[in-house]
């Protein structure tokens, strides 16, 4: 050591710790640079890019059918919804008329994806605040959804079931039965989530009044999804800009005004109930018809700019395609929900304790590949 350290006894001093890229609470390879005074957080600065694969650049080289499978790898917990977003953009640009059957199936699968994502989130949320058992209960139920996906789409996580123009193949004959079984099972298990974790006094004390985000901040930071709705910002794309079959189902937008960690938690639990109700409404009414409309083998979008937003489990996913009329997009931009939500972390976490930061991160429901793209 060449520098001399001033030895001043009892001088309090802020110090700096590196949370991640390998840290259990950062859910992957997110790195947070924390400035801490004792246990109190003075500054949070996210450092991203540890899983950056430049998907946007890869899209500029791929055909529109090929782009779909790249979006599986962004927010892998709502991969079906990501696929749907790209397909909807391409279909709208081409002006394709999509069969009703496809719309309904896409909606059911999207809601199942949302359920699966929230189940995993619930398990991880419990784990982050120290209740390890929740993880397994969440996963038990998520496995059943994964089975539905595997039977119909062929894969459990990166399904790539949507193609521009419809679905890759029709649903499996067992799909309806399996989905109904799951819904019946999950309706008995979801109340258990509440008794085990939501009602728990320790959990409530840990989360209530922590990481408050006001409505103005929520809008200004561009947060979407449950994070924004907990703060009273009504931003459900399914309601405001309905796509697929969302215009014909009855459901409520989970919304509250408190904006703390506990409310964000409640929003997701409520969303699970809403998803169940959406699936209940649709599962018996899948219309007959084609599962896709024919497109050219080489899809060429007309010249122009196309924007489509969908509601993933994390919030608003925007797909922005600038086309110059060729077989690949000229520029493709994914507006990922996690990226904007993460930008609000500093606002929420500064001034709270190290343990709170973990709880706040858990309710942001961060999926790092979604942020890094």
């Amino acid at each position, binding site marked *: 050591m060449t520098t001399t350290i001033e030895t001043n006894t009892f001088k309090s001093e802020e110090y700096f710790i590196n949370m991640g890229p390998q840290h259990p609470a950062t859910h992957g390879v997110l790195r947070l640079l924390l400035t801490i005074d004792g246990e109190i957080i003075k500054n949070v*600065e996210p450092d*991203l*890019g540890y899983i*950056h694969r*430049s998907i*946007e*650049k890869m899209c500029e*080289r*791929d055909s529109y059918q090929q782009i779909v499978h790249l979006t599986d790898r962004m927010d892998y917990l709502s991969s079906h919804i990501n696929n749907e977003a790209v397909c909807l953009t391409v279909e709208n640009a081409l002006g394709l008329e999509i069969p009703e059957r496809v719309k309904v199936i896409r909606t059911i699968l999207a809601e199942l994806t949302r359920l699966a994502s929230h189940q995993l989130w619930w398990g991880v949320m419990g784990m982050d605040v120290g209740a390890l058992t929740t993880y397994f209960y969440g996963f038990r139920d998520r496995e059943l959804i994964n089975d539905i996906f595997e039977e119909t789409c062929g894969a459990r996580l990166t399904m790539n079931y949507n193609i521009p123009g419809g679905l890759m193949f029709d649903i499996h004959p067992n799909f309806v039965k399996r989905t109904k079984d799951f819904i019946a099972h999950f309706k008995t298990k979801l109340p258990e989530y509440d008794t085990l974790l939501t009602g728990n006094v320790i959990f409530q004390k840990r989360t209530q009044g922590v990481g408050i985000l006001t409505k103005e*901040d929520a*809008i*200004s*930071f*561009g947060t*979407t999804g449950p994070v924004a709705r907990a703060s*009273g*910002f*009504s*931003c459900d794309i399914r*309601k*405001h800009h309905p796509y697929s079959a969302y215009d014909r189902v009855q459901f409520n*937008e989970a*919304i*509250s*005004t408190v904006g703390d960690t506990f409310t964000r938690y409640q929003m997701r639990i409520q969303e699970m109930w809403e998803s169940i109700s959406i699936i209940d409404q649709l599962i018996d009414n899948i219309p007959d018809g084609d599962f896709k409309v024919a497109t050219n083998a080489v899809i060429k979008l*007309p*010249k*122009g*700019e*196309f*924007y489509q*937003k969908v509601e993933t489990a994390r919030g*608003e996913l*925007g797909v*922005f395609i*600038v086309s110059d009329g060729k077989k690949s997009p000229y*520029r493709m*931009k994914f*507006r990922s929900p996690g*990226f*904007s939500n*993460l*930008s*609000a972390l500093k*606002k929420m976490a500064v001034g709270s304790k190290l343990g709170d930061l973990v709880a706040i991160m858990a309710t942001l429901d961060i999926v790092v590949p979604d942020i*890094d*793209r």
Partner: protein
Amino acid sequence: MDLTKDYKIIGMTNSELQTLINSWNFEVEFSEAESQFLNITVKPENLHQLGLQLKSNKETSFDFLFCVTGMDWGTDLGVVYHLESTTHRHQIVVKVKTSDRENPTFDSVCDIWYTAEFHEMEVFDFFGIKFNNHPNLKRLFMPLDWVGYPLRKDYVDEVNMVIK
């Protein structure tokens, strides 16, 4: 507090927006072709002013910046801002361009919409567009010592890029 919203609210139509924004005299160009939104192209020096006006004006109140896209139009570099109003629910696209490829610079809008801080870092990272008054402009995704701006059309990397 009643949180049930009327999801059918549509604020101003594109032509109304066009007349209103025209009355502010920011020398903007309008275009509705090839896009589902009203596109306005603004000069870089007016960007920050226009942003403030768009957000603070009661009739427009574009308070939700939901997408910031860096663009390379071949000769011009630029940024595309997608805006929405959470009260009126109308949407608009603001574009800003510069032909300076060596040292492209715009004003930062991160004091108007906080989310722009991260998005502008991303644009800087991929396109090398600098933003004045940005509190912490650095590479966000790429390593700090990365050379070049990967999403520019003239970017060449023979090692890492596979051209089909």
